[in-house]
């Protein structure tokens, strides 16, 4: 049974996923973008087809024995760790994009995330398309209050999720995203992903590291009780003005320190931060080499002047967005506790 899912991101970008079959209740977790799901979309910017396909990789350049490349086109068979897949992307550089993906992840870890790899590729293409339209999909947490937003970019393990949870629970903030937010002009738009998981965590867990067996069972029950409803207890913030950008850096020092950083450094960092997200990793799957980054480099090797290769657009977009925003970096200790949130909360308030 073919299943079609439609998504609309703030009327900026539309995409469609079709697949051979759904994954039942697992899709409550598996499908990351459900917040943006709609009944129907016309002329999607991206169409993702999951399932068997026949590639049209005739007349291609071949890079490193396995990447098939021609203008606006990419195909390869790939494998790493416990995953194996083949992917074809037409419209890799321009125009409407179609991703054909057929893959499999072995092992228990992937049970709840059967479409993990392709959603990672999809989000990368969403980022690329948004960038062409003048939006920057930042790897960052974001929260807002009275349409004033704080954005908190950081690498993995910097407790972005825990901070969001506490800003919402204790600070009375609304949620924009714990992994990505969209930046445009002087505004932040929400990009909540895996909202059901976040909803449960916010309600029941002290922080993101509290996933023990007991909580996993509670979560399963919690999902079961809400399986038909799309709503979560989380209030999603409206587009808000960027009030402050605060990099979160985790350290193995004991103290919390804050310093100001320059616009140039900030732009470089935000771009590197996004590129580093291409190195997908999910515990136990053994994947850590960054498929999209390799695909884009292989494409750049053949077409060095293409917009995939140069990415000049991001620089301009970010410069115009952040020109008048105060920017700081805050170093936090190795372990998260309420003290971290309190310090951060106090710091944001001191800027009022």
């Amino acid at each position: 049974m073919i299943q079609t899912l439609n998504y609309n991101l703030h009327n900026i970008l539309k995409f469609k996923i079709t697949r051979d079959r759904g994954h039942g209740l697992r899709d409550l977790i598996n499908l990351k973008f459900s917040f943006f799901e709609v009944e129907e979309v016309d002329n999607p910017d991206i169409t993702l087809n999951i399932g068997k396909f026949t590639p049209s990789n005739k007349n291609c350049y071949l890079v490193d024995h396995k990447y098939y490349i021609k203008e606006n086109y990419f195909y390869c068979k790939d494998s790493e760790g416990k995953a194996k897949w083949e992917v074809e992307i037409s419209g890799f550089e321009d125009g409407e994009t179609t991703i054909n993906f057929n893959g499999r992840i072995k092992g228990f870890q992937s049970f709840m995330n059967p479409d993990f790899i392709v959603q990672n590729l999809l989000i990368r293409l969403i980022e690329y398309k948004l960038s062409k339209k003048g939006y920057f999909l930042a790897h960052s947490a974001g929260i807002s209050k009275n349409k004033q937003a704080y954005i908190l970019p950081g690498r993995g393990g910097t407790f972005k999720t825990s901070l969001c949870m506490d800003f919402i629970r204790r600070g009375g903030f609304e949620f924009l995203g714990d992994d990505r937010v969209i930046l445009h002009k002087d505004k932040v738009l929400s990009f909540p992903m895996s909202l059901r998981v976040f909803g449960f965590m916010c309600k029941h867990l002290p922080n993101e590291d509290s996933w023990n067996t007991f909580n996993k069972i509670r979560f399963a029950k919690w999902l079961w009780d809400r399986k038909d409803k799309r709503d979560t207890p989380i209030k999603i913030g409206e587009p808000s003005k960027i009030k402050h950008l605060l990099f979160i850096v985790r350290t193995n020092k004991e103290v919390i320190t804050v310093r100001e950083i320059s616009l140039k450094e900030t732009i470089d960092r935000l771009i590197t931060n996004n590129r580093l997200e291409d190195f997908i990793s999910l515990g136990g799957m053994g994947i850590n080499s960054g498929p999209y980054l390799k695909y884009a480099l292989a494409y750049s090797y053949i077409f060095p002047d293409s917009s995939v290769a140069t990415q000049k657009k991001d620089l301009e977009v970010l410069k115009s967005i952040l020109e008048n925003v105060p920017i700081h970096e805050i170093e936090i200790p190795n372990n998260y506790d309420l003290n971290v949130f309190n310090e951060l909360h106090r710091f944001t308030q001191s800027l009022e």
Partner: protein
Amino acid sequence: MDKNEKSYNIHGILRFKIINRSNFLNRLFGTVNLEYKNFETERVNDPDFTIYLGDFTPSNQECRILDNHYYVKEDYFYCRDSYKAARWGFEISGFESEDTKIRIYTNSFASMIISGFLIDPLINFKLAEKGCALVHGSCVSKDNHAYLFTAQGGGGKTSTALYAVERGFNFMGDNFTILDKGYALSFLSPLNIFSFNLVPVVKKNMKIKSKAEFHLKNILYKMTGLRIVTKIDVKEIFTNSLNDKSKLKTIFLLIPKGKFGIVEIDKEELIGHMVANMKLDSFPFLKYMMMYSYVFPESRMATHWDRYEENLRRNLSDHVTIYRVEVPQRYDINTFEEIWGG
């Protein structure tokens, strides 16, 4: 002199030391000794970097922690990583200054790949600091003129160079070449021998031991599907046909496609291809560089690729002729003849 300590000198431009204190198995499987053998030299006292192989305790206090396992502080990086069955950990310090130290722990699988994963990219970084450019390509020479064949994996770098040596050219390298002020400098790493590139000159000059190794591994491959590549020191084969340094005359960018085609391109276009080529060849080191750059966006490490591009521009003469060659996916002697005919 400590027999665990070896010194290397790359054309008087870059000097480094390897101090090997790893265990018996890692030494048995390790390829590092063979990999840089042709740069081995008398003891050097002021190396540009020193590599310590063997277990170590990281000095990763007071660091920023990225993605839960990359440790960064000023002029310092540490992490553990893995690829398939290979596991390694390494700590590098002093790379922003003159005195660089890299400590590497590996398991036996990683000891076979560590040169390509960590040391070659470090050499690339350091050569860029010296104003030269390491390029991914094979190189041959005749009458003091060098011909560079740059390509990604599968482009026929090794085959082209080997066919050329058959035709009386001198060998300068089959994987890397150094560009220095209009000259090509040799980078003699061991040849990876497969059945498809076993050309007569190699077959004839291979020693009995290497031949036996090659055939044994071939049988093993046919029986089990497990491919272990045979590496041969180029000095074993090309005793009288090696060359150190020649004026770079012609560059061929080889890209596999359906059928043969050749077109002249300009320097700027070549540079674009070459930068992406080197980045693709720098995994997983590229990831470590990006992690460090995230914290220190204005560091030497973060600006390396801009410098690399600029070095290519500076070290390539404007008089060099550059061809972009589309080669068939099955590369053979006919392809070579066509390149040469063109």
